[in-house]
């Protein structure tokens, strides 16, 4: 553990800020605190909803679970509650004592010319918050945008935000400000999701019907978050309709969805259950059956995925509420050959969380959560009496408690603690025969205990200056190995005037668990591994600063952010590393440093019939792995870019409400091409006499430099239309056209052999570019009754 001068300074600042809260409380004793929850008409909480008293020029925004707290002077006030996309509530109150007051806002989707496309955090709130580098995504917004195969995917929608890169064509992996995809903390109702992907990353595990909102933090991480270096993706599930039973669903090109929600015990609570399943396998089975018996036909393996989300909440009393969340998702891949060989490959997440919300007073409440997260994969081969099984698993049991204390309207204090028991099943291999002659295996398990305490205060020093200081003390233990560190967080916002603010922040993060992968992409067979022995925690720091400007009467928000991020103990693996069932995985790691910098410009419009955004990022990402551990490092110790380094990234998203029934959308993306490693040279290997390879057919590539070739620029236009049908406009037809102008983007490049057709002899070698998706139209029917 290293306590640097910087760390000590932040600790002192945090203490000062926290202590500052105490006298403030005494001075404001005569004030009244209002608190409660802001919900939509269907019982969904509304993060970012505004609760304000215009006459006093004061107000607040609901937090990520729709809670608000507002300190006001006693007496008569007129309270205004607004959320974009909902009808405003105005309430006259005579405040005599602190109280809880919740609001249910009706949707505002009837009148043309009003707000039609919603995002629940207003531009003014974005201007005023100290938080930088955060993207709030409302699922209603995501559902309007065109999507690959019509499958709404919130992670892919996040890729349209500045500073966020995708891993490749059509994939939902996120690469944030130079970080790798395993450096993202993905949370579903505060529970870690270890593999947020289906089908090797083509779809995310989040069913849009069940999701309420998504917040992506790219920098300025609040102190309650930790454990990953690069970003936090905070996904909240919907809570279900508290007033009536509702069934919704969708029938799409590759999957169908169904959701049921409704009240529990006359509105004391509510529930939602939502499921989704793809049906590739139904078509492939039919095709296989049709071609059964044909000699030249190779059966197509079965593949499908499903996921099931459930959430229930129940109000126990005035001050207590329970929330129960569950998720189960599986990808299932199976193959049975006529030769008697059976193969199955399954992977998926299982999550459960129970949260208890208790309100001590209008100024203080606590959320206490117990959760479990499990990710596993299993690969089984069977032939007659022989079987071979390979698998890996990570299971977490977590307890956490998060307090929020608002002593007055100048301070918002958060503090809490979390502890997680990890079980890492890093390599389970089992080979057996029915007669017992083959019976060997390997089962390598490690355990880890992860803990953290944190505190932060958001302090309004003056009307113009707002400060946020936080400190997170983290520790990790696995076997005899212990690590720990202090993670200071700091942010400041200075409002030059009502339309201009400048922000600055700093964050230090530790990551104690690491993804073991030898691939450029995230695969289901990747293994999570604890910090132990040689494998030290990864560490990164980031500073960012920028300005926000409200333009054209507050209709547009222009934001510019600069960032610099640097990290130590970044992990990679030596060439030829043996990652499966290896009891000494530590020896396969190599360590290096990373640094990334860039500028993000973001112009956003959230109200009116036409909404959307334009984002542009200019960025650099670097890595360096020196020779070590009997290897030449990576790239012989020279600096190199990771393959997701993109110099330019432009996104344009436009949503237009043509009339009450029809919305049109378009998204355009232009980025520098992915980096890839191409061989410069080759040589032939004949191998030993009697071997199956020779010089002619398959040359051996020599790769001198990592990621030295950049693919052609990537650009794509997607178009969409949502047409509401039915007398109550409850149903809709959603048309998506992915890659509308049929651009052949490069998925990867390889060198192929060129053969003489007559003799089948190799006559040369040629570079080939492979594209993944041409133009893909899709139609989805969504219903609600």
């Amino acid at each position, binding site marked *: 553990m290293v306590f640097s001068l910087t760390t000590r300074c932040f600790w002192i600042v945090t203490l000062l800020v926290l202590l500052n809260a105490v006298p403030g409380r005494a001075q404001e004793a005569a004030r009244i605190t209002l608190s409660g929850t802001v919900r939509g008409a269907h019982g969904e909480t509304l993060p970012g909803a505004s609760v304000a008293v215009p006459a006093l020029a004061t107000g607040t925004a609901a937090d990520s679970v729709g809670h608000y707290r507002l300190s006001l002077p006693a007496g008569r006030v007129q309270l205004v509650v607004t959320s974009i996309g909902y009808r405003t509530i105005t309430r006259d109150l005579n405040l005599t004592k602190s109280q809880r007051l919740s609001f249910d806002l009706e949707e505002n989707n009837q009148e043309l010319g009003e707000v039609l496309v919603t995002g629940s955090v207003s531009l003014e709130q974005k201007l005023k918050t100290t938080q930088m580098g955060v993207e709030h995504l409302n699922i209603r917004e995501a559902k309007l945008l065109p999507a690959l195969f019509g499958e709404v995917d919130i992670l892919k929608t996040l890729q349209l935000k500045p500073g966020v890169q995708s891993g490749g064509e059509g994939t939902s992996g996120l690469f944030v400000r130079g970080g790798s995809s395993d450096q993202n903390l993905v949370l579903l109702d505060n529970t870690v999701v270890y593999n947020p992907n289906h089908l090797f990353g083509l779809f995310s595990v989040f069913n849009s019907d069940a999701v309420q909102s998504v917040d992506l933090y790219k920098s300025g991480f609040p102190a309650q978050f930790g454990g990953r270096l690069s970003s936090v993706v905070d996904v909240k599930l919907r809570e279900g309709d508290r007033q009536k039973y509702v069934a919704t669903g969708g029938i799409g090109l590759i999957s169908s969805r169904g959701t049921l929600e409704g009240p529990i015990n006359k509105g004391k609570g509510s529930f939602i259950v939502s499921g989704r399943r793809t049906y590739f396998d139904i078509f492939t089975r039919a095709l296989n059956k049709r071609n059964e018996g044909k000699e030249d036909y190779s059966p197509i393996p079965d593949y499908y995925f499903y996921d099931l989300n459930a959430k229930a909440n129940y109000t126990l009393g005035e001050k207590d509420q329970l929330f129960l969340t569950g998720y189960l998702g599986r990808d299932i891949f199976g193959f049975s050959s006529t030769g008697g060989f059976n193969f199955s490959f399954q992977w998926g997440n299982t999550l459960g969380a129970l949260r208890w919300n208790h309100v001590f007073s209008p100024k203080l409440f606590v959320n206490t959560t117990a959760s479990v997260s499990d990710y596993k994969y299993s690969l089984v081969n069977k032939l007659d009496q022989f079987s071979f099984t390979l698998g890996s698993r990570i299971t977490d049991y977590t307890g956490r408690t998060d307090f929020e204390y608002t002593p007055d309207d100048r301070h918002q204090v958060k503090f809490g603690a979390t502890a997680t028991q990890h079980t890492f099943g890093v390599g389970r291999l089992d080979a057996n025969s029915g007669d017992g002659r083959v019976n060997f295996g390997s089962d390598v398990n490690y355990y880890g205990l992860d803990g953290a305490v944190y505190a932060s205060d958001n302090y309004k020093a003056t009307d113009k200056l707002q400060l946020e200081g936080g400190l997170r003390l983290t520790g990790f233990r696995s076997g005899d190995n212990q690590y720990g560190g202090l993670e200071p967080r700091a942010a400041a916002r200075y409002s030059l005037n009502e339309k201009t603010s400048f922000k600055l922040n700093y964050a230090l993060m530790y990551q104690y668990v690491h993804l073991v992968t030898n691939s450029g992409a995230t695969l289901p067979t990747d293994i999570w591994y604890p910090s132990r022995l040689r494998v030290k925690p990864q560490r990164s720091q980031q500073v960012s600063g920028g300005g926000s400007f409200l333009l054209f009467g507050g209709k547009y928000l222009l934001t510019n952010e600069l960032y610099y991020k640097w990290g130590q103990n970044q992990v990679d693996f030596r060439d030829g590393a043996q990652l499966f069932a290896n009891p000494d995985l530590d020896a396969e790691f190599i360590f290096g440093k990373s640094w990334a910098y860039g500028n993000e410009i973001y112009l956003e419009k959230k109200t009116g019939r036409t909404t959307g955004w334009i984002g542009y990022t200019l960025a650099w990402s670097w890595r360096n792995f020196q020779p070590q551990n009997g290897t030449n490092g990576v790239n012989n110790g020279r600096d190199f870019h990771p393959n997701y380094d993109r110099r330019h990234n432009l996104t344009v998203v436009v949503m237009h409400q043509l009339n009450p029934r029809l919305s049109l959308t378009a998204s355009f993306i232009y980025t520098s091409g992915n980096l890839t490693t191409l061989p410069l040279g080759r040589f032939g290997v004949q191998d030993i006499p009697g071997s199956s390879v020779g010089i002619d057919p398959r040359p051996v590539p020599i790769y001198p430099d990592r990621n030295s070739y950049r693919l052609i620029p990537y650009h794509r236009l997607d178009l969409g239309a949502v047409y509401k049908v039915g007398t109550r406009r409850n149903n809709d037809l959603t048309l998506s056209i992915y890659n509308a102008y049929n651009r052949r983007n490069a998925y*990867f490049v390889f060198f192929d052999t060129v053969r003489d057709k007559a003799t089948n002899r190799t006559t040369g070698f040629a570079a080939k570019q492979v594209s993944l998706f041409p*133009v893909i139209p899709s139609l989805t029917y969504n219903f609600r009754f």
Partner: protein
Amino acid sequence: MTAKTDLPMPSRLKPATLLLLLLALAAGCGKLQNDINVPLPSYSAELVLECYLEPGKVPSLAVTTSVPYLGAVLPQVPTDVTVTLTMPNGTLVPLAFNPNYRALTDTTSGEKFHSHIGRSRLVAKAGDVFKIDVQDTQGRHITGTTTMMAPIPIDSVEYKFNDKTGTNRKAYFLTNFRDPATPDDCYRLQLHKGTPTAKNLLKSPEVDMSVQDRLLNGQPFVLGTSYRFSAGDTVTATLYHTDFAYYRFRQSVRDARGANGNPFAQPSAIYSNVQGGVGIFTVLSGTMTTKIVK
């Protein structure tokens, strides 16, 4: 018709609808794989050595050079290379430049190309250490050392048929042997079909697999195949006992080949067991047995 009345489509959308239909028709049209021009930077060629000594056979080896990937197809065979093999007793044996160029283009006989060859058959036993020295006139210099592993006897081979009939009736084949107690032993098993003549054993085997004893050190090994042999097949199993360096070289060659054309693979370096160039220098220590599938 009711729907048409209730859901008026603005007239300005009609061209857009047509465009969408056209785009839908275009879906899937056109190739998803195209030739492109990739300007590769210059590349410095290295010497490549491939030498498999085998007791009872005349030592031979191939010295070629690596080439730019998009260069000439056939390997470049340098003619100015001198090769010296150091025997276990320290005797220096020069291998003469005497290439069989025919093997470079003949891909049917299974004969391997050699650039240099000795004069007398190799005598070697387990534990013998050999050295190799390869130099050309441009100053490129490869050296290497290898030790002959003890041959591992094949305890037994067996087969078992599936329960199908006719041409679908196939057998899998099992090869049994025991790994010694020493760590880092590696094996290469080849299964050839047909009578075990020298000519047949030069051809591509039905099965060619490599394993190491990481999880089974000192224990019995059973290496099996899928259902692929028919009644009447003569199967010859050849088991080579190799060191880890040879196993790792083969794995790295496989990984490097696999990375070309696989978007999920990380390009791999070649792990040679020679210094000053690329390649492999090893002694093949094999045992063989034959069984007829009935």
